[in-house]
């Protein structure tokens, strides 16, 4: 009863180490002994950031943008403790696709066209804006951006509802099988490398319960190590979480067709700082942020 409880938020996809902890708690000796976890699922990182701010979550998945906004708009103070997924050379990078036979070959060809995006205000969205700007397009005037989300993106491109749309796994894999689309640009063209999602824990909680958070981060690391060793296990637990067949995941999970996973989950602090700076320069963030404020050296992966 006096085992401390950690309240953790999670989402789908790309948090395999959390899925493993949820589905195979017996692999983690500390879990349940040193601390317990109350898992709550969320849709996207924004509501999780909000929930942490409201003090109903202690740790949550975050993206550079949602954390920065949370800090600026509502005074959220988290530590970055581990990294879930990033884009690095050789790994998968979110890309915008057009029809194979589309006349669109470059950014300029997008003038006057309709571009799909996942969610307004997401990192993927802002990186796309950066790409448009870099290529001399005004996102407000030169193109029409509609929010499609990832799932219908491919069908939307094929049916002509949008001229270009964003692609992520598992849709990319499905699509390679079906054919008919080709990539136009990818996020790595904008920032290389860049961090997609990481784990953040409330500073107040962490400072009050350093041992609990440390144990949690250590378990995350262990989970990632086990998964790297055994990608089939990753497919298995992800399948259990999402109810999609494991075969779907074994096609890409933890392969070069997937986002980059740091084996020890060490956050790429510099890449995150770069994202903050890019966003600030472009005016997406009101303030410039210093990543140091969000790092506590003794509680960041890899911990021993």
């Amino acid at each position: 009863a006096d085992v401390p409880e950690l309240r953790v938020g999670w989402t789908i996809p790309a948090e395999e180490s959390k899925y493993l902890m949820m589905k195979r708690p017996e692999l983690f000796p500390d879990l349940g002994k040193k601390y317990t976890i109350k898992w709550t699922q969320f849709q996207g990182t924004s509501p999780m950031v909000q929930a942490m701010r409201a003090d109903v979550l202690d740790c949550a998945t975050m993206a550079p943008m949602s954390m920065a906004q949370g800090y600026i708009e509502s005074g959220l103070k988290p530590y970055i403790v581990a990294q879930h997924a990033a884009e690095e050379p050789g790994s998968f990078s979110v890309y915008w696709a057009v029809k194979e036979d589309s006349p669109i070959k470059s950014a300029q060809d997008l003038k006057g066209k309709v571009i799909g995006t996942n969610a307004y205000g997401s990192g993927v969205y802002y990186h796309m804006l950066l790409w448009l700007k870099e290529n001399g397009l005004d996102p407000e005037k030169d193109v029409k951006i509609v929010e499609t989300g990832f799932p219908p993106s491919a069908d939307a491109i094929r049916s002509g509802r949008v001229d270009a749309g964003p692609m992520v796994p598992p849709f990319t894999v499905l699509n390679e099988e079906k054919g008919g689309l080709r990539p136009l640009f990818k996020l790595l063209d904008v920032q290389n490398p860049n961090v997609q999602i990481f784990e953040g824990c409330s500073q107040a909680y962490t400072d009050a319960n350093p041992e609990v958070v440390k144990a949690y981060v250590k378990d995350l690391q262990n989970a990632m190590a086990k998964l790297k060793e055994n990608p089939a296990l990753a497919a298995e637990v992800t399948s259990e979480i999402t109810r999609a067949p494991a075969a779907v995941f074994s096609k890409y999970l933890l392969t070069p067709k997937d986002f980059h996973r740091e084996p020890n989950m060490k956050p790429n602090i510099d890449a995150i700082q770069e994202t903050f700076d890019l966003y600030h320069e472009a005016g997406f963030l009101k303030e410039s942020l210093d990543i140091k404020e969000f790092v506590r050296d003794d509680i960041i992966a890899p911990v021993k």
Partner: protein
Amino acid sequence: MKQAAGRSLRWYEHPAVGIVLAILFLGVLWSAASRFLGFTSFPGPIAAVKELRFLITDPAALWAILQSVGRMFAGYVWALLVAIPLGLAMGRSRIIYQIFYPLVSLAYPMPKAALMPILMLWFGLGSFSKIFVIAMGVSLPVLYHSYQGACRVERKLVWVAQAMGMGPVARLFKVILPAALPEIMIGCRVGVVMALIVMVSSEMIARQEGVGNLLFTSMDMAQYATVYAAILVLAILGFVLDALFERVRRYLTRWADSNEGGA
């Protein structure tokens, strides 16, 4: 259709026949649409039904469905307990009407599911906020129809009860309630629909374990057959609830003249 006194059912008026016909009709329509559109994300009925077989034999999926149903049931019952008496009272008393009407009519068009992310923060991450939004959604049609029904009660029925010395609260339950019952039942039936809408949209906006979550997660994972199997589960759920409800309604309003067949 209810059977007219002294009139026999035709073959197609047997409920099962109508349903089968309607299912066939919809199935063909769906299949044609899916074929015509050719979207990966819009599979035909056969794929969905195949997947449905897996879905309903999987304990984890069943558990998710059960959780949804449980929350829906709790929300529905709460809504009935609050909305029917309040609606009837609003229909009979000017004062109660004036106190509650502005509040109720302002709050009702609000998309409760949109509040989910905030409600979760107010009420915590437990079941309460989910049950609460469902109750809010259901109470709307129930309240309106109860109010409507109470307004329209033949005044001489009320007079008779008054003359027997029945007080206002007793009248509400013993006269207004039964007299307004056919109308209330319409509200309850729409309430079933509302409960499902709110349940699905709230599980979509705040991913809480349940059949709505199953649906949208499958969509995120490109499991389109599962998506439509989940929609089928919702449809079956809705149909069963509606049918159960229709039974209750018939029993409770068996005294009412249904004048079937209309013109």
